[in-house]
């Protein structure tokens, strides 16, 4: 959930911080992802090419920290499909499957439920600062409203999903408002943009995100969340493989 949570998760910071180095800004973005628990229901709207009507999938999700994540689809076509992330393992149980299967190897690169997110996007746990060298490209007004730092991240290790990223970070909240993800060839692959933010428990939370696949015409996924509950107690049963297989 690394890429998604870069913009999904909340900012604890309240005021602008001046004279920060790019690494410090990135560290603050990383640190912002610290939370106890989260649960929400949501919708994924998936549009591919000339498809007349986008696919719409609804789900319930719950997470504890960064390493434990549960997601269950509730729309008629996928009802009962469940995902469970436990540390570095991702498990899926299909609607009619008796057992959960581990998603590994090449399968991790595949699209999650036909969306523009890959399983790997959901699996990455590494801190951005551990994987990327960062430089500040400048400051920009995002959507004409928010002052942003524009950071360029270039991979400093070989084993990294995206060779280059450009992130627009809200100067006040240290929240990634837009992320561009690039291939090794420096071609733009995906662009993730926050479309709507709401205040929840005094924290700013992005409730609508658009992930656009720049390689294919008219291909994007809208990720909408509602009924977000932060730092509320969560049952252990969500994060049990035995429970997943029931």
């Amino acid at each position, binding site marked *: 959930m690394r890429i998604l949570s870069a913009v999904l998760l909340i900012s604890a910071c309240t005021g602008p911080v001046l004279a920060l180095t790019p690494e410090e800004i990135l560290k603050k973005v990383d640190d912002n992802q610290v939370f106890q628990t989260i649960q929400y229901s949501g919708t994924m709207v998936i549009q591919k090419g000339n498809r007349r009507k986008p696919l719409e999938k609804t789900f319930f999700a719950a997470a504890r920290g960064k390493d434990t994540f549960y997601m269950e689809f509730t729309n008629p076509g996928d009802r009962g499909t469940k995902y469970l992330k436990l540390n570095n393992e991702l498990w899926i149980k299909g609607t009619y499957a008796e057992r959960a299967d581990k998603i590994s190897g090449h399968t991790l*690169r595949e699209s999650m439920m036909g969306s523009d997110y890959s399983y790997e996007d959901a699996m990455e746990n590494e801190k951005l600062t551990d994987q990327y060298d960062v430089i500040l490209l400048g400051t920009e007004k995002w959507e004409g409203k928010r002052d942003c730092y524009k950071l360029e991240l270039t*991979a400093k290790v070989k084993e990294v999903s995206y*060779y280059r990223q450009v992130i627009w970070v809200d100067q006040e909240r240290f929240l990634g408002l837009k992320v561009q993800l690039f291939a090794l060839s420096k071609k733009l692959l995906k662009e993730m943009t926050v479309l709507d933010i709401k205040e929840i428990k005094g924290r700013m939370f992005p409730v609508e995100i658009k992930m656009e696949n720049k390689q294919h015409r008219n291909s994007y996924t809208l990720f909408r969340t509602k009924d977000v509950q932060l730092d509320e107690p969560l049952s252990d049963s969500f994060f049990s493989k035995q429970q997943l297989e029931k």
Partner: protein
Amino acid sequence: MKNLINLAVKNLTRHTKRTLITGIAMAFGIAMLIWMDGMLRWADNESKRNLQRYEFGNFIISTKEFKTDRKNYPLNFMMDKETIRKVIEIAEGLGCSASPRTGFISLLSFNRGFGLPYVLMAMDPEKDSRVFSLKENILTGKYPDPEDTGVLISSVCSRELNAGIGDFITIETRTRYNTYQSIDIKVTGIFNAPDPVVNRNQVFITRALADSQLQTEGTASEIVVRSPSGENEPFLSRMRQGLASAGLEKDLVIETWQDLGSDFLAISQTKRGGSRIFMLLIFIIVAVGIINTMLMAVFERVREIGMLRALGMSDREVIWSFILEAAGIGFIGSFAGVLLGIGLDAYSVYVGLDFSSLFEDMDIGYRTGSVFYNEWNPDMMLLGFIFGILCTVLVSILPARKAVKMEITDSIRYI
């Protein structure tokens, strides 16, 4: 016996139309049996040849870890440059050809259209052309040079993407280090291999391009070996010895084309069972035709049979006269069937039948192109001929016995 034969021949010629109609039905069945057998035999053998010529060579050498996850083309179990050099040296020392390859699961698109899944195969064009036959199947454009920066795609891929020679297609994949990569590559060649698995699933770039764009750094996931004779042995055993003496047997494994194509070979075995069912169907056609004809002959000649028996002909001789008559129909039908089968075989051996409009986008399980040929099958021709006559003789016993069941007096008065 001579009299019985004469009687049988006369009975056959007395009802020429009936004899011909029954014979034609038999001939058609036997001809179809010969033709279908020739075609299935060709498809089976051609598939085995194509497995070697386009997919697996004689055997493939890879790391043990790669072998366990081969279908997913893992990139984290590669052979390094030095290992590749040693393996190729051993293979070439045995007179074999060896080609290192690396497959990348990719999405191909053109003009930002929908992405199509293909395996991007990085190969050394010179070495690869000594192991595989792809070079002989170039439709347009050219087979890559070792330093080529273009991509060789199949005619199926070209049609699906609507891209041709000179167009730049986008290939999205992961590098050896699992980093997303997206490259625009010019189509420099289009092939049409007779192996549908290759046509529908693979596109080719050079290893040099993979080194520069996909971080392979001279490594490869497998080395495909082709023996000079086309047979696995004795090269396979010698290769194992060679790997052992180079100290590589702990890390590397060899899989033969039979191991790798075991799914196909199992299906092929099942299909052979299917051709036996086809023979049974032919038997039923022949049996129904002959029983019908012979029963008609018996009922038609009840009085005649009674007369012959009254004049002193034994029941055994009557039965034999009917069996010989049936054998005559069997001979005519089988002979015509074999002739027709040879004709159909000859057309299919030299011209072939183009099923492209039927099978183009369909997986029929064979590793062949859409033009089907036949193999000559003299054993099946002989078997069809004997089988046809035996069938008729066997199924004629029942109606012949019926001919002598009636009392002679009842037979003579039978209306």
